[in-house]
């Protein structure tokens, strides 16, 4: 079994700041981490490795410094790591990114692709599903559980919905997007850390993708960011402590006041 896991380096903050001039994320001074959903996906892959000896390849697209999350993946137990990095790929939106990752995937052998549901910086949840579309394979999103039966070669997936879970089974190739909340990723082992920087991270450039220039990076990105802003806090609401009958009158009066009814 060969598994390809897509991971991304993201700023470790819940308080994202936007540069008012460039409208892009301020990354300076913010520690970078492996995106939590992606780490959950890697854990699912490593569990299949523990049980069935799967070979786990991690891939990331990003700046050269993103290499550190690949080292982290090695220290957790990944077997192979690919860093897709090239100035030509900069400014890619989800469409260009997914094309680029799919172009790498086409050149590798794999049985399963695992990605995180979404990254905590962009929050689009688009790249995983788009990769599956480019590759023409089925996708299951919001994965909260993953089992494999080697006798029947069947995967059993628990998919989280708003109001419950769906249990799905499939055979053959597919792409899954996973939830960080569903699994507790393992810590890097000490021995794994000692070895991590001695292993080879394969660096791929745009020239290896076989894509036209207009399909990659900013040129291949139809998404235009018109404006980004930090949401301003609204004024606190007013609390009326009244009995239910008075509350009805109050609400009706307020709704009339606002011309809602």
């Amino acid at each position, binding site marked *: 079994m060969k598994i390809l896991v897509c991971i991304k380096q993201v700023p470790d903050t819940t308080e994202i700041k936007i540069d008012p001039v460039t409208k892009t994320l301020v990354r300076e001074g913010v520690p970078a981490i492996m995106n939590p959903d992606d780490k959950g996906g890697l854990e699912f892959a490593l569990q299949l490795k523990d049980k069935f000896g799967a070979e786990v390849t991690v891939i990331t697209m990003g700046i050269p410094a993103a290499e*550190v999350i690949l*080292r982290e993946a090695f*220290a957790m137990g990944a077997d192979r790591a690919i860093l897709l990095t090239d100035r030509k790929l900069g400014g890619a939106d989800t469409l260009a990114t997914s094309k680029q990752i799919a172009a790498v995937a086409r050149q590798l052998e794999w049985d399963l692709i695992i990605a995180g549901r979404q990254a905590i910086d962009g929050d689009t949840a688009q790249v995983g599903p788009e990769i599956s579309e480019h590759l023409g394979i089925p996708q299951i999103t919001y994965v909260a559980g993953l089992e494999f039966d080697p006798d029947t070669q069947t995967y059993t997936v628990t998919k989280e919905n708003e109001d419950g879970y769906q249990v799905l089974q499939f055979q053959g190739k597919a792409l899954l997007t996973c939830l960080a909340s569903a699994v507790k990723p393992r810590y*890097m082992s*000490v*021995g794994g850390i*000692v070895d*991590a*920087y001695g292993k080879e991270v394969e660096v791929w450039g745009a020239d290896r993708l076989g894509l036209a220039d207009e399909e990659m990076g900013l040129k291949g990105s139809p998404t235009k960011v018109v404006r980004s802003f930090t949401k301003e806090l609204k004024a606190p609401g007013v609390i009326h402590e009244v009995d239910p009958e008075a509350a009805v009158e109050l609400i009706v009066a307020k709704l009339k006041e606002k011309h809602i009814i």
Partner: protein
Amino acid sequence: MDFNLNKTQELFRQMIREFAEKEVKPLAAEIDEQERFPQETVDKMAPLGIFGIPVPKKYGGAGGDNLMYSIAVEELSRCCATTGVVVSAHTSLCMSPILQFGTEEQKMKYVPKLASGQWIGAFGLTEPNAGTDAAGQQTTAVLDGDEWVINGNKIFITNAGHADVYIVIAMTDKSLGTKGISAFIVEATTPGFSVGKKELKMGIRGSATAELIFTNVRIPKENLLGKVGEGFKIAMMTLDGGRIGIASQALGIAQGALDETVKYTKERKQFGKAIAKFQNTQFQMADLKTKIEAARLLVRSAACKEDEHVANPKVNFSADAAMAKLYAAEVAMEVTTKCVQFHGGYGYTREYPVERMMRDAKITEIYEGTSEVQRMVIAGKLFGKIK
């Protein structure tokens, strides 16, 4: 000269910080309150390789170095000093002397089990009448055929009762003084070996500290560690490494208290503003931070010197370890005492962790050689022989 951690050490520091914050910190108050050995944390640390950090992979270790080991004890102790000393006593006082003085057979037999955390290790030197004056050993070991027969008592033994293997120092020929002392490897399951009274302590209360009782304990002849008569030297060299562990523990306690106090003084308001805005707070905290950084440089420098010693046994790091421990322990005591003061009345309660940290810090000035012993070691190196 490069004072920065390399990439491997930095990745390791991040892992151990995250582990300590998520797995160790939430238990720290509870194990202190209940005076309970943190077995569940031991079980979590073992598969990650934390019990075998500076051990070559050949012996089942992680293949790291003593600087990484020091960082581990520091980061664990930043959240819980008990957890720090469990790892420190195991690594420095049990595994390290086997690696340094053991035969290949002894290393292959014991180190893989210890490095994997399957077995926990401990070290027995101190006796009721042989503390700082460690040469006054009354525990005896007598060769009887193919077995050594050990009789006597050890006290204040860290990890006692939870350890599976003990390095035990005993007198083999009293007429030779310190040259008549030898070191042995004793398994906890050996008949005649038992663990006595558990001490009720001021701090590091989750750490098991107890008496070891040897009543005609018969161990195989091949469990002698090093040569007959080398025990005192082995004990002293073992303590050199142990002192880096304790210095790292002290450093971690100090850093933990400082971090808690930065957080508290920014939140706590008096006279209409956060107490961190008062210059008295800022100046005192600046001094504490400076002392912690100085201690860190001494501790890391000593750990690097120990790594040099591993590569080249002629390199001596006794004074480096002594200076690191002396300074870090005194800084830990000063920092934690002042951090309790910054917390005011709340700091004196168990609602906040700084009172525990202050209690924990005190032992670092005492065990594995008191601060006075460290001064003796440093002065000995400074003056050499005085005519």
